[in-house]
């Protein structure tokens, strides 16, 4: 008997000094520099604000966060690990372990919010609710079916991008809404950290999807695209029902739908596809946009003349060292 079995491939160590795809290192650096833990956010400053919410608003918030916890749990324990098996480069696998772990941090963060603001019984009720809610369970099932080992690598990535870049947003809407009314602002800070991470995850998985897709012949590419749009439609139907059930009592459903359309289009763009929803139904409430990206909106349309900011400052000659970022 020899030491090298003919069946077992040689075990290979990952060499970060030999990259097949520079994007892997770029995203590794980005994700590791973005690392955070919920302890960094002073959630206890929201205790008084929490008490100002009505019992219905509190219950909605706990349920929304429980729904988000479920998606993060799926991505942590099933989604990101399922993508590892399809990784083209060893560095991609390493990046996916970071993604998996950060999803665990996200899931863990909601429990930090709960333990800071809520009573145990209310939280236990919400976790039971998440197991019994048909729409939440149905969308989880649709995603989990694609994470199945027999699913194609491209379909897994599509499901993953839809989870990261679309499904979270029916939930993210609520803390942005509270924050726009100066409520639960520290919780919103924590959610913004999660939102930032999900953007990198959706971008990276979408990038890997596009690299694989471009190697396929035209007919298979079309088939994959059809699959993506069909899955998005199915998920969208469920999201609308989920949204109505949660947000109808507060009269926010129509507002949330615009946010869903806007994010669905961004998810499709992450996959390299054109948006599906026309812009007329993607007009997100400016208060939600401002809450999502504070300070970012003041001056980005110089053309329209609305930008207040462009002042030709003191001209200082740019030196080459200035560009040494």
């Amino acid at each position, binding site marked *: 008997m020899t030491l090298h079995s003919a069946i077992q491939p040689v075990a290979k160590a990952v060499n970060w000094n030999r990259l097949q795809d520079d994007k892997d290192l770029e995203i590794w650096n980005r994700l590791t520099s973005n690392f955070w833990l919920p302890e960094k956010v002073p959630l206890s400053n929201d205790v008084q604000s929490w008490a100002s919410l009505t019992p219905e608003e509190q219950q909605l918030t706990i349920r929304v966060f429980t729904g988000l916890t479920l998606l993060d749990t799926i991505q942590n324990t099933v989604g990101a690990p399922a993508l590892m098996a399809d990784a083209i480069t060893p560095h991609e696998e390493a990046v996916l372990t970071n993604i998996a772990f950060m999803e665990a941090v996200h899931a863990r963060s909601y429990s930090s919010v709960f333990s800071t603001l809520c009573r145990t019984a209310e939280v236990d009720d919400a976790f039971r609710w998440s197991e019994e809610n048909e729409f939440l369970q149905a969308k989880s099932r649709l995603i989990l079916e694609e994470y199945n080992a027999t699913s194609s690598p491209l379909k897994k990535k599509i499901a993953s991008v839809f989870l990261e870049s679309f499904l979270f947003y029916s939930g993210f809407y609520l803390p942005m809404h509270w924050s726009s009314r100066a409520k639960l602002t520290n919780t919103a800070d924590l959610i913004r950290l999660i939102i930032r991470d999900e953007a990198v995850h959706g971008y990276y998985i979408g990038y890997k999807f596009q690299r694989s897709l471009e190697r396929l012949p035209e007919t298979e590419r079309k088939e994959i695209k059809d699959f993506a749009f069909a899955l998005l439609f199915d998920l969208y139907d469920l999201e609308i029902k989920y949204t109505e059930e949660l947000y109808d009592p507060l009269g926010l459903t129509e507002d949330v739908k615009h946010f869903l359309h806007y994010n669905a289009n961004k998810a499709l763009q992450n996959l390299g596809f054109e948006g599906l929803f026309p812009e007329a139904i*993607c007009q997100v409430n400016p208060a939600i946009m401002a809450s999502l*990206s504070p300070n970012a909106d003041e001056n980005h349309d110089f053309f329209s003349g609305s930008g207040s900011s462009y002042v030709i400052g003191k001209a200082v000659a740019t030196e080459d060292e200035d560009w040494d970022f």
Partner: protein
Amino acid sequence: MLQMADPFVLITPTYADGEGRGAVHKQVIRFLNDAANRNLLRGVIASGNRNFGAFFAHAGTIIAAKCSCPCLYKFELAGTETDIARVRQGLDLFWKQQH
């Protein structure tokens, strides 16, 4: 490396981390490190993702500040049809005003 012969507006993606670091991509830095290119730069348009909050399309902000040119527009990912129309119209007007 790309050498510009005429005045131009740069359209660039953003790669910032959570603190805004590394917003300008290395290739863009190399391109603008060239003084001849930099002298012809009239404005910058940046893409990004609002998920990055205050650092949305931050590359535009940084390049505008460092090169003393306006950041003309910011858009998300590949942009929407409205973004494309606004940039087209805006650039037409912008170049007319430059002459």
